[in-house]
């Protein structure tokens, strides 16, 4: 979310900020020679960040003020039970050994064992992860085209009534927290004003949310309303920049129809910052799903995290926070690579 700062409210500023990353990447690509090599280096940097992230997640559990076993069981626990849990958690091993065992398990797709449910963490959160990805995927597939469409329309009719209205609405929606948008939708469509949609996503365990499309409408709508305003402003600002540029003006002057200028010049150029922002938005949506899932009691990864927190289920908390962080790193990586691939100047820089 912090990277939203550049575009949350800044109009043309957004483009300056978003495209500022491009020359930096260009320098890197050129200096180190070769696009393939650059991608390899970028991947390696991503892996290093992921490793450091795993250290932070592991260290967080060491920051517990008391012994983890005591903290999990609470004050009334008998010494026997504490000793048993200490053995189960492997707390007798050295810190480095504990970390290496944990990482080793992760590489072998073993996320550990849930303390509350006493099943492998992977089993516990597998379905939840898929459910969250359904939410994320649907929200992304609706948000991106919608934002590009609205941004383009707004840019073409700059300072018109629709443009001003769109800017005003987007200013309000980017400010308001996601759960407030969600609760408002619940009140309007599910409880107080209308009752045409379910307020709560009642999806039985083992059943796909796609089999219950009505329960998906409000959660997806909440996420869409949370990110479209931001992307819309970004697309609008980049479009306006391109349309005002000398070459686009020239194209219009020599008689090229407006539609062609839009398609050939404005859209492709506006896509670069949009692609970068989209990957960031995916990361934002991912954490946005935590609160939105809680609002609609949707059985996803976020609500699994909330459950794990209330039952102090350390292995589950560790696994889920790590999944979120790795996803953000991956999305950022994707953004950088896509930016280079869609920018001709950068793509050929290594040749």
């Amino acid at each position, binding site marked *: *979310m*912090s*990277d939203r*700062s550049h575009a*949350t*409210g*800044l*109009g*043309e*500023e957004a483009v*300056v900020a978003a495209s*500022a990353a491009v020359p930096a990447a260009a320098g890197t690509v050129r200096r180190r020679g070769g696009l393939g090599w650059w991608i390899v280096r970028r991947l390696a940097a991503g892996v290093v*960040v*992921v490793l*450091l*992230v795993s250290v*932070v*997640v592991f260290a*967080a*559990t060491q*920051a*517990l*003020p008391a012994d983890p076993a005591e*903290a999990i069981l609470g004050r009334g626990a008998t010494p026997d039970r504490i000793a048993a849990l200490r053995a189960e958690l492997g707390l007798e091993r050295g810190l480095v050994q504990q970390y290496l065992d944990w990482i080793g398990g992760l590489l072998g797709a073993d996320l550990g064992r849930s303390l509350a449910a006493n099943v492998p963490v992977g089993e516990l959160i597998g379905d939840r992860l898929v459910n969250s990805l359904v939410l994320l995927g649907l929200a992304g597939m609706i948000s991106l085209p919608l934002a590009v469409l609205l941004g383009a329309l707004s840019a073409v009719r700059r300072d018109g009534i629709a443009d001003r209205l769109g800017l005003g609405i987007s*200013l*309000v929606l*980017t*400010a*308001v*927290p*996601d*759960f*407030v948008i969600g*609760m*408002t939708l*619940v*009140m309007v469509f599910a*409880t*107080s004003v209308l009752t045409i949609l379910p*307020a709560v996503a009642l999806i039985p365990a083992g059943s796909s949310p796609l089999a219950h499309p009505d329960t998906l409408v409000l959660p997806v709508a909440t996420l869409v309303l949370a990110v479209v305003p931001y992307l819309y402003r970004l697309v609008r600002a980049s479009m306006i920049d391109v349309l005002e540029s000398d070459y686009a003006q020239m194209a219009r002057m020599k008689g090229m129809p407006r539609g062609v200028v839009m398609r050939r010049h404005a859209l492709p150029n506006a896509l670069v910052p949009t692609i970068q922002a989209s990957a960031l938005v995916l*990361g*934002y949506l*991912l*954490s946005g799903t*935590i*609160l939105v899932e*809680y609002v609609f009691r949707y059985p996803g990864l976020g609500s699994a*995290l*909330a459950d*794990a*927190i*209330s039952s*102090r289920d*350390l292995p589950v*908390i560790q696994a889920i*926070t790590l999944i*979120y*962080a790795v996803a*953000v790193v991956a999305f*950022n990586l994707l953004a950088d690579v896509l930016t280079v691939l869609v920018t001709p100047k950068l793509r050929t820089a290594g040749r």
Partner: protein
Amino acid sequence: MTGLMTLRRAFAYPQTVIGAALTGLIVLLALLGPLLAPHTPTEFVGAPLSGPSGDALLGADQLGRDVLSRVLHGGRSVLWMSVAAAVLGVAIGVALGLLAGYARGRADAVVMRALDVVIAFPQLVLVLLFVSLLGARAWLIVLLCAVAWAPGVARVTRGIALEVGEREFVQAAEVLGYRRRSIVLGEILPNLTTPLMVELGLRLTWSIALIAGLSFLGLGIQPPAADWGLMVNENRNGLTVQPWGVVAPVACIAVFTIGTNLIAEGIARTMAGIDRKDGG
């Protein structure tokens, strides 16, 4: 460009004025609310989830406490916590950004890579991870929010510090033998004023969202205290019967964030104006 000049320019835009009015309304409500509240936040005034009456203008909550009084009491926590988180986050971010942007070289690389790790966590996840382990304490939440905001602020600061460091007047000061520290404080900081005011406004908006969201998840201010985010969570089960318990705190949070965001946007517009005049 001093902060005062920036503010004066920002208030030339009507949206800044509207934003300041909305923010001022909520700040007054939060600060004076407890003095105006007809009941204490934990006093029982009627049947659970009973509708508005003469004694309880917005009805009673799920335990039978006065919704209006709880709304009037419930703003202080989110107000002081979000302001503290935003100020602290910007302060940490500026310090790290200046260090990285002015020292450059190895210090720069170490600081920025460390911040890459922090930024890899979605803010809510970072805060949840530590709050879930260490307990929901107000100062801890403030500190974690600040840590979550610091990398973004540091990146902005570093960028400006690098750019200003290249300018002739800073290099001239360096040649003239001024100490590096006084150059940073004397020459780079004034250039940072306006961008940092924008950062502060945005981080404040997000702090409100994050802190209210934590309370909504039940991991912020703990019951029986009155808090807007917590109230939404407590009363949402009674939404069909007594909507006021949710509508009132939701409206307060929304107005607060919209207000601070409008101010941030207004200040950002003055910055875009300066850039254009400079030919940037």
